Each structure stands twice: as C-alpha cells, then as structure tokens.
C-alpha cells in the first residue's frame, strides 16, 4: 500500500533536448498547446501570462464532449529552472469550478511544481503535484482578479449550466 507516499505524487522524465529547448516547449504558448493535455483531446490556450500571479487559461476539446476549461495560476517562474502553479478546472469565463464531470473525486485546486535540470541524456524534468489548500487571502486575490477579467469573456453561461445540469 503505497498510494499516499510522495513518490506517487512525483513524475520524472528525461527529454532528449537542451534545457533551454525544453523550457521553451513548456513556456511558449503555441508549443505548449501542441503537447499538453489528455490523450484524445485538443488543447487551445485562451490566454497565457508567464509571471508570478499571471495565469494560463486552457480549453480542452474532445470528440462528442462539451469543452472543458482549466486555469493555471503561476506562483514561481524561474527560467530555466523552475515553474510552480496552482491548477484547477474553470468555467468558460475562467472562474474556478469543481471538476465538471460526475463521479471522480477531485480536489478544487492542485499545486504543481516543475523543475528542470541538466542531465547526461538531455534535460530531466521532475514534476510533483499535490492537493492545494489556498489561504483565504489567496483565494480572495484570485477571485478579485477573475472578476476583473470577466468583461473580456463574453461566453454564454447557459451552456455551462446545462453542462453542470
């Protein structure tokens, strides 16, 4: 029984490319959109602002399913060594929501840490994720930021309501 050990929350992989190249693949919107996301889905970056406090807003499309949205708020951006963000599902206006599908338990927000290190075979990327418990003030800041962005998103909430039905 090792489900809860930290090893379960960590993934490491060696990419056969220089650290600058791998960093660029993670932090350039059009490159990121080419590889990130669950199998069988197409990802679109709706906005991307690489700085602490900035965020990455993502739409995921799969055949025969309504689109899903995610927002990733950067906490650490330290090129080309480290990224840290808080990730959760979002509605089409970018507001944080619970996982928009029934059944699977899912934390509201997750903290993801990504580190990049030189390796004999290229670049080693170590990624860890864990449930995130935001402090009240962090959540207030996040909500305030989202309120400011809503004007820019003219999507219909009706579709979301149907989705959440």
């Amino acid at each position: 029984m090792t489900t809860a050990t930290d090893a379960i929350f960590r993934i490491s992989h060696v990419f056969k490319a220089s650290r600058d190249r791998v960093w660029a693949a993670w932090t350039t919107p059009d490159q990121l959109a080419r590889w990130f996301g669950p199998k069988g889905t197409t990802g679109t970056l709706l906005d991307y602002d690489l700085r602490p406090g900035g965020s990455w807003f993502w739409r995921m499309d799969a055949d025969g399913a309504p689109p899903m949205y995610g927002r990733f708020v950067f906490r650490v951006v330290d090129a080309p060594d480290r990224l840290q963000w808080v990730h959760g599902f979002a509605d089409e206006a970018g507001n944080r929501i619970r996982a928009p599908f029934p059944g699977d338990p899912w934390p509201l927000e997750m903290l993801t840490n990504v580190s990049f290190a030189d390796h004999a075979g290229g670049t080693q990327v170590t990624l860890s994720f864990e449930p995130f418990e935001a402090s009240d003030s962090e959540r207030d800041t996040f909500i305030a930021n989202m309120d400011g962005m809503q004007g820019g998103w003219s999507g219909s909430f009706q579709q979301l309501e149907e989705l959440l039905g």
Partner: protein
Amino acid sequence: MQTALDRKFAALADPTRRAIVARLALGEASVAELQRPFGISQPAISRHLKVLEAAGLIEGGRAAQSRPRRLKIEALAETSDWIDHLRTLWRDSFARLDAMLLEEEDPK
C-alpha cells in the same frame, strides 16, 4: 462548504501529514513512534493526527495516548482516482513532447 472529500484532500495538502500517512502505510504506529522521525513536538504531531482523523484517513484504538494509529486504506483509495488521472495526463503529455522534440531534431 467543505465535503468529506475536501477534508481528505486538505489533510493530504500538508507534506508532514503525507509523510505520516506514508509511514502508517507500512503498519500501525504509536504517537511516540510517529514523532521520532519527524523531529517535531508531540503537540504538533497530535495536531496533524487530529486533522488526519477528522478527515477519516486514519483511526486509533482506545488506549488514549499510546493507542496506535492505523491507516484507513479504503478512505485513501477514494482520493487515488485523481492521482491516476494526473499521472496518465502527464505520461501522455510527456510522450507527445518527446515526439515533438525528436521531430525538430530530424527535419523532414
């Protein structure tokens, strides 16, 4: 509104509590046994155990302070779905990034 599942995830958001859970995954342990490797005070350990117990992740016997704490494996399994989802997501993504980086290396 905090659901039972929120309490589990919140409990697991702390690295010390994850380490306690990892230790208990190897077998039950008393408060004193749990305290030793972490080098933190007994009240601090007790607070962490209280959070884990409130989240339904661990349970203890009757014998007060010395009662051994035990992991509730079925409660933990509930949270393992999202771990599996995330691992799959990243493995699939990494495979695509591997392919993308290789493509560039050998231009057609």
